[in-house]
């Protein structure tokens, strides 16, 4: 048996010990692969360049994050093997040989994990696509076989493995191993939180929240970075100092601390908080980032699609620019298509004329009969206008003016009513509805739009598709379809949102396995501890209570902090950009919290089963 064989046998014969590490690497590969696959998707469409860049940036950040994650997993894993290394040292293995052994093992695991991860990714991405499609009713990207993504992922992870192996020489501390052998392992010293830093973190956080709440659109750009930095620093000290400080405070409250199981869980948390501070910090910050980006994306998506009726009141409009020879042919074609599609529709020919009065102010005028046709379709009140009257129709309040009299063709006209409504697709400013007789008097060019109104327009994009196939080459005809625009926007925003949810998932899953790993390393020591305590009379019910509180805090705290952070950020966005983010954010944070809760219940159950098996007869 040579050294290589020894290392390989180590892995193959002790699969259980290596499994947790294998699993975390496998998850990382699967996530990275799926993400790469989407970025390189041939049908994902062209994004604006900054989105393209930020996607690649996200890929690189993800890679670093996963690197950190794998590195962390291996360090936890190796630390649990100190005893084994100790034996190897005893029989005269050099550190170089141990590192070589780790390298071989690591390569073996990484290659297996990469293969497994890519396979999982292929399956997972399909499921993910279906899920997204169902959840957001968007046309998801089609499935493809991503050779490029497979190559990139394989290279990235083999490289990651080599780098991680290289860094393991830092993790393995010869001194600690020798201490362990001699039975003189250094005890865990009580953490000493700095009161100053604890206060600092609370103050920084409150100030950052205050700035965020009082910001406005002018100073937003200046403060946003400052607030971010403040929150990041505050969060770090919140976990590493403030939480420990708070538990120390609980310990001082003897009436609370010395009551029932409080004594055990409070003192456990006192150490575990400090041990996990860095992990909690990372989980909080990444989750906050994910919540904010998903929340914002979802809000924009929802908002844009929500106001489609406002932007495009009519299902179809056809307009001509310049000389259009095929106009009647095209109109007939659209008419024909609508009939064939079985849509019930109302054709309206919208005409308007522009006049300029003596004071050089120009007005766009519309016939009352045309207006009434539109009003009927758009559920507005129909008008009845006399010769010297007009109704002012404004697309939105910002186009309002104080004109209430005008002179057209020598006739004095009075504004009798103001209506705020959008009745045409490209109605930019204000329309004046006048009596038909007056309108006909005006001698100026008439702008014509052919509109087709369909009440239930959601599937009418097929008409557009047919039209586009046939008349796309005509530069003089502009055919707008509400349904087509809606679908296009939906898939564009959908893709971005989908990617941000995906990044959120990466953070979520990896941070979940962070905690998972941590607990299953700890369970070995905990088993021993609870066995002893059970012997002196700690009941299983009490162990259950201790575990529930302890794990509950360790699992939920980072998410709760993340939820608070993102709520503040999103409410600021809400206020400044007047985008409704409430429901979106609630949906996202709520579903992540539910997932986390399920994860907590699952891990707690397994952990308790492990502990129970260790306890004495029942």
């Amino acid at each position, binding site marked *: 048996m040579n050294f290589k064989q020894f290392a390989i046998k180590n892995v193959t014969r002790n699969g259980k010990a290596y499994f947790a590490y294998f699993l975390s690497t496998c998850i990382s590969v699967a996530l990275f692969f799926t993400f790469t696959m989407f970025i390189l998707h041939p049908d994902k469409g062209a994004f604006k360049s900054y989105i393209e860049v930020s996607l690649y940036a996200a890929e690189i950040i993800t890679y670093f994050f996963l690197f950190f994650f794998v590195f962390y997993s291996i360090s936890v894993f190796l630390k649990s093997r100190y005893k084994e290394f100790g034996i190897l040292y005893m029989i005269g293995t050099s550190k170089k040989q141990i590192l070589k052994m780790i390298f071989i093992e690591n390569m073996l695991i990484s290659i297996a994990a990469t293969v497994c991860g890519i396979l999982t990714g292929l399956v997972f991405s399909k499921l993910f696509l279906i899920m997204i499609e169902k959840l957001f009713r968007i046309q998801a990207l089609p499935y493809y076989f991503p050779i490029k993504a497979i190559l990139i992922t394989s290279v990235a992870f083999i490289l990651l493995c080599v780098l991680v192996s290289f860094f393991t020489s830092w993790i393995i501390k010869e001194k600690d191993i020798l201490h362990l052998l001699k039975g003189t392992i250094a005890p865990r010293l009580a953490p000493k939180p700095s009161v100053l830093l604890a206060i600092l973190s609370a103050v920084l956080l409150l100030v950052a929240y205050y700035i965020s709440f009082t910001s406005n659109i002018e100073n937003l750009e200046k403060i946003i970075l400052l607030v971010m930095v403040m929150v990041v620093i505050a969060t770090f000290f919140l976990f590493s100092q403030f939480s420990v400080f708070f538990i120390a405070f609980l310990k001082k409250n003897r*009436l609370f601390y010395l009551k029932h199981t409080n*004594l055990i869980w409070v003192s456990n948390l006192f150490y575990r908080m400090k041990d996990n501070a860095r992990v909690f910090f990372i989980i909080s910050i990444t989750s906050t980032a994910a919540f904010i980006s998903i929340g914002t994306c979802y809000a924009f998506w929802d908002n844009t699609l929500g106001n489609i009726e406002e932007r495009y009141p009519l299902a179809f409009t056809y307009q001509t620019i310049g000389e259009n020879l095929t106009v009647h042919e095209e109109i007939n074609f659209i008419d024909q298509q609508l009939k064939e599609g079985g849509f019930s529709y109302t054709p309206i020919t919208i005409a308007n004329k522009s006049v300029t009065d003596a004071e050089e102010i120009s007005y766009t005028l519309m016939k009352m009969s045309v207006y009434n046709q539109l009003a009927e379709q758009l559920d507005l009140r129909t008008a009845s206008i006399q010769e010297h009257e007009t109704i002012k129709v404004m697309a939105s309040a910002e186009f309002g003016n104080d004109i209430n009299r005008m002179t057209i063709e020598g006739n004095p006209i009075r504004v009798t009513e103001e209506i705020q409504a959008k009745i045409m697709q490209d109605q930019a400013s204000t329309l004046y509805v006048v009596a038909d007789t007056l309108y006909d008097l005006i001698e100026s060019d008439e702008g014509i739009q052919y509109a087709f109104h369909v009440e239930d327009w959601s599937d009418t994009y097929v008409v557009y598709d047919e039209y586009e196939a046939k008349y796309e080459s005509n530069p003089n005809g502009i055919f707008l379809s509400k349904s087509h625009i809606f679908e296009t926007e939906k898939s564009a925003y959908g893709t971005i949102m989908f990617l941000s949810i995906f990044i959120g998932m990466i953070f979520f899953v990896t941070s979940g396995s962070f905690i998972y790993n941590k607990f299953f390393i700890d369970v070995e020591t905990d088993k021993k501890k609870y066995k002893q305590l059970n012997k002196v009379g700690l009941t299983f*019910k009490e162990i259950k209570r201790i575990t529930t509180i302890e794990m509950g805090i360790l699992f939920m705290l980072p998410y709760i902090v993340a939820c608070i952070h993102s709520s503040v950020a999103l409410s600021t966005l809400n206020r400044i950009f007047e985008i409704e983010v409430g429901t979106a954010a609630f949906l996202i944070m709520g579903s992540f919290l539910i997932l986390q809760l399920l994860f907590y219940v699952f891990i707690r159950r397994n952990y308790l089963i492990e502990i129970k098996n260790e306890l004495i007869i029942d």
Partner: protein
Amino acid sequence: MEMLKVSQLSKSYGKQVMFSALNHISFSIEAGELVGVMGPSGSGKTTLLNMISTVDQPTSGEIYIEGNNPLSLNGDKLALFRRRELGFVFQDFNLLDTLTLGENVILPLALDGVPVKEQDRRLTKVANILGIKHLLSKRTFEVSGGEAQRTAIARAIIHKPALLLADEPTGNLDSNASRIVMELFEKINQEEQVTTMMVTHDPLAASYCNRILFIKDGSIYNEIYKGSSRQQFYQQIIDVLSLLGGASREF
């Protein structure tokens, strides 16, 4: 009064090939006694202790602690029985390193919801008896083995158990610390009337007991009582051990 009564206790392991660890052992311990249990490795003394500790079930026979049969209880009720009626001292102390020594001592009281004032009062009392008052705010790794064992004894007696069970309490200690710990066992036995049963290998430690039960191959081999002097008792123990055989291999 009988604190512990063991009658016809047997334990066998295995399915096809039965191995009998204990054979119909019967004895009893009166209130206020300090009883040692000795015997070579594999004699069944740890099995016996485990069953009295209620952490193992006998194949047949009965155990009564202060007249109660703990074997009729199960699960959490049994754990509560251990917590309230028994005190444990282990070879490796079994103190929680996340707690201070003082917190370790009051742990059984805290778990039972005893008011803090009462906890403090009892802690002061046992700390004085065991001479660990100055150590209460220290952590487990800051004190010596002897001091840790004294803390463990304090934890074992703070709730006034019916029976104190000790498993090789001097096994991890040097001779000086062993002597101090045994003197404390003797002291709490005499001054606080703590009924104690102790399993030990160490004849010197055993010589602090009032009575020694010798077990060999799962049965009681001999039983000796302490006379007037500890020195003489020690000699008697050595004699029995050498008769028991294997004694020379034991220490």
